[in-house]
């Protein structure tokens, strides 16, 4: 009986133990599955899932013929986990320093886990698990780094090590050095068209990768199109941190940015830049700019501003290279402005090309000021055509006075002065403050402005004025981008030439072309701008610079704007030089004329522009060639 009672008690105790054990397990189950569910689920997810970012390739920038002007290449951002390196920094640094192009000592320092105190005295372990070693490491180099790490020797017989030590070395080789995908913006032609293309900046993302953003030029203006959209992938990992494809939760593909196809022709741009570079060496100006465009469409084939820079190396950018002078600098146009005055007067039928203007023998007193024609010239009667040909300041002033201020202002704004041209580049200025309405002009402005003083423009605005004359009187919007393409080359958006307005009639434009042709003749101011086998029309400009509030006699902005073939214009070219070393002896025709001629000749050959001058038989002096005789001294 007692025995049975004991057995019952034992069974009861056992049952109590079992119940207690199950209660304990139940409690633990509740703790893990209910009370700490969220926290542990996050922890488990972190250990078994990874989110990898998929960078969108930034779109390329191409020239009109598909030549690559800017592209992005895949590179790696090499990082280290110092906590996995233990005391082997020296071995790892010795092996990797040559690949990472770093000094061994510097690399070794970076591989040491850092436990520091911040400004508030708190202990921080920044760099304990993650430290950046090198950016922009090419893919091939990263593969070499991986191979080097997998064969790393530590000078010990690993067979004699404990299991834990062997695992440590295995993890060091496999996981201590890692890489993240990154992009590097590359400009294959270096400084070519640098001011047009611009350059990019880098921002660090929250996921430690660099985000490229446009900082200047086309890179900035079309940043949202070029940028694309990053993708991501959330998937499970095995114990060796390999992705388990079957456990992919999210898989969003990166969308590449659009390619921007410019109207720029790399070959024409090269011709322009090499010619301007030579001129820079010869004349040592503060700066020199050039534009080559098609006047009928406004397509810009080349646009250069020197001194330039190499967008691959941002250290080459300084205050001299600055933003693009063609659109951001304002200058007094000088005699090229006479094109506007005479066009306006012809269009209003106030004058005709054969009308005579008395040029006061070189001295003209008006509203308390005395105007001069250029040094050594005392013109008497000149026809309107000759006023342009010889660039008479007094002749232009008198025509301006006859046109009257409101009409002159109307033509100035009609030709686009004081307004943005609409070129798709950042930093364009309108120079609106320098093109004041007629009612705000001074008493002698109407005599001064027609000769290109007291008004300021951008180089592009003046080039567009000349383009409008060449285009039969229709002002075009400058066109720099031809189309936007997707990564497969499909056209997403095409840009068409846009006319802004008709400024003068076709007849007026024809008269102007006839007059501008005479500028590039042996009696004109730009005989040196002639191009063999082509009839050139154009206008010189020599503007005094304002220094300390006064016109300086030794600092000039010289220019030549022209187009050819004159009666069927294919190219309009602008060359502007700021403060050449010739000082007071600098003239637009003498300095910029030959540069124009060289650019025109090379472009005509490259673009296969049919000549409009039949070459004379051998031995006969060429009409145009005779204009290049050294005795033909150019006038302002």
């Amino acid at each position, binding site marked *: 009986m007692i025995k049975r009672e004991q057995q019952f008690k034992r069974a009861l105790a056992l049952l109590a133990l079992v119940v207690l054990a199950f209660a304990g397990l139940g409690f633990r189950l509740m703790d893990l599955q209910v009370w700490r569910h969220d926290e542990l689920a996050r922890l488990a997810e972190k250990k078994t899932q990874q989110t990898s970012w998929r960078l969108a390739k930034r779109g390329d920038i191409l020239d009109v013929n598909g030549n690559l002007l800017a592209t992005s*290449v895949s590179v790696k951002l090499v990082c280290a986990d110092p906590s996995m390196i233990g005391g082997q920094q020296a071995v790892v640094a010795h092996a990797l320093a040559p690949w990472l192009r770093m000094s061994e000592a510097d690399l070794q320092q970076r591989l040491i886990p850092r436990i520091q105190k911040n400004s508030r005295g708190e202990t921080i372990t920044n760099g304990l698990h993650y430290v950046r070693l090198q950016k922009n490491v090419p893919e091939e180099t990263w593969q070499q780094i991986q191979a080097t790490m997998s064969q790393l020797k530590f000078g010990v017989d690993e067979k004699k090590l404990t299991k834990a030590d062997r695992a440590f070395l295995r993890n060091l080789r496999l996981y201590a050095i890692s890489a993240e995908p990154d992009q590097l913006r590359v400009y294959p032609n270096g400084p070519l068209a640098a001011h047009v293309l611009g350059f990019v900046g880098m921002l660090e993302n929250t996921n430690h990768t660099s985000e490229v953003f446009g900082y200047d030029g086309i890179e900035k203006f079309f940043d949202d199109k070029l940028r694309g959209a990053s993708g991501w992938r959330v998937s499970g990992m095995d114990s060796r941190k390999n992705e388990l494809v079957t456990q992919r939760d999210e898989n969003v593909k990166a969308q590449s940015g659009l390619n921007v196809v410019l109207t720029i022709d790399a070959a024409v741009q090269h011709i322009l830049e*090499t010619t301007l570079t030579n001129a820079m060496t010869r004349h040592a100006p503060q700066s020199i700019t050039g534009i080559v465009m098609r006047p009928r469409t406004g397509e810009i084939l080349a646009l250069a501003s020197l001194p330039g820079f190499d967008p691959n190396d941002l250290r080459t950018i300084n205050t001299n290279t600055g933003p693009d002078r063609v659109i951001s600098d304002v200058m007094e146009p000088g005699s090229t402005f006479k094109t506007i005055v005479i066009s306006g007067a012809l269009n209003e039928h106030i004058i005709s090309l054969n009308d005579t203007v008395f040029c006061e023998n070189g001295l003209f007193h008006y509203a308390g000021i005395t105007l001069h024609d250029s040094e050594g010239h005392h013109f008497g009667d000149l026809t309107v055509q000759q006023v342009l040909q010889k660039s008479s300041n007094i002749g232009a002033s008198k025509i301006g006075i006859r046109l009257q201020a409101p009409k002159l202002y109307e033509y100035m704004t009609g030709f686009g002065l004081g307004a943005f041209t609409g070129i798709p580049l950042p930093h364009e200025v309108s120079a609106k403050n320098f093109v004041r309405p007629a009612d705000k002009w001074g008493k002698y402005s109407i005599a001064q402005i027609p000769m290109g003083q007291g008004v300021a423009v951008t180089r592009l605005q003046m080039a567009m004025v000349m383009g409008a004359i060449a285009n039969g009187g229709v002002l075009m919007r400058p066109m720099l981008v031809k189309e936007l393409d997707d990564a497969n080359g499909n056209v997403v958006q095409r840009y068409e030439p846009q006319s802004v307005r008709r400024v003068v009639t076709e007849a007026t434009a024809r008269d102007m072309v006839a007059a501008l042709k005479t500028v590039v003749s042996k009696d004109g101011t730009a005989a040196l701008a002639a191009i063999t086998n082509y009839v050139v029309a154009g206008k010189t400009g020599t503007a005094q610079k304002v220094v300390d509030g006064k016109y300086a006699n030794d600092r000039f902005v010289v220019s030549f704007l022209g187009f050819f073939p004159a009666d069927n214009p294919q190219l309009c070219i602008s060359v502007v030089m700021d403060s050449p070393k010739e000082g007071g002896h600098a003239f637009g025709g003498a300095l910029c004329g030959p540069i124009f001629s060289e650019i025109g000749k090379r472009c005509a050959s490259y673009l296969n522009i049919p000549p409009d001058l039949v070459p004379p038989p051998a031995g006969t002096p060429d009409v145009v060639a005779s204009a290049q005789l050294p005795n033909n001294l150019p006038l302002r």
Partner: protein
Amino acid sequence: MAKNRKNQAAAIRFGPALKALFLCLVIAGSAVGYVWQKSQVYQLGKQIRETELRLVQLERNNQMLGDQLADLRSPVKLDQRARGLGLMPAQPGQVVRLSETPFTPSEKSIYARQFAARPTGVSP
């Protein structure tokens, strides 16, 4: 009676054994099939991953070759290479331009050419 019972008992034992065996085979087969399928899924996932990596590598190589091609076709580099070889743009004196005058053959010359072109002995 005993004989019959013996025979019946033997029949009953054989049947359940077969059924049990069949059931075991089904369960074991399902288990092996499940493991095999899991293994296949893992292997295929691995293959997909490897193929994706290969695709990325090929795309990268393609991009690299494209960049190399662009570099070789760059007008700037071509110009530099041409100048390195001592070549330079043709000077105006070296260019001979031919004027194109429209050709208007006389009637006589047209007939003469037609007859000259026709093989002898062949009627039109």
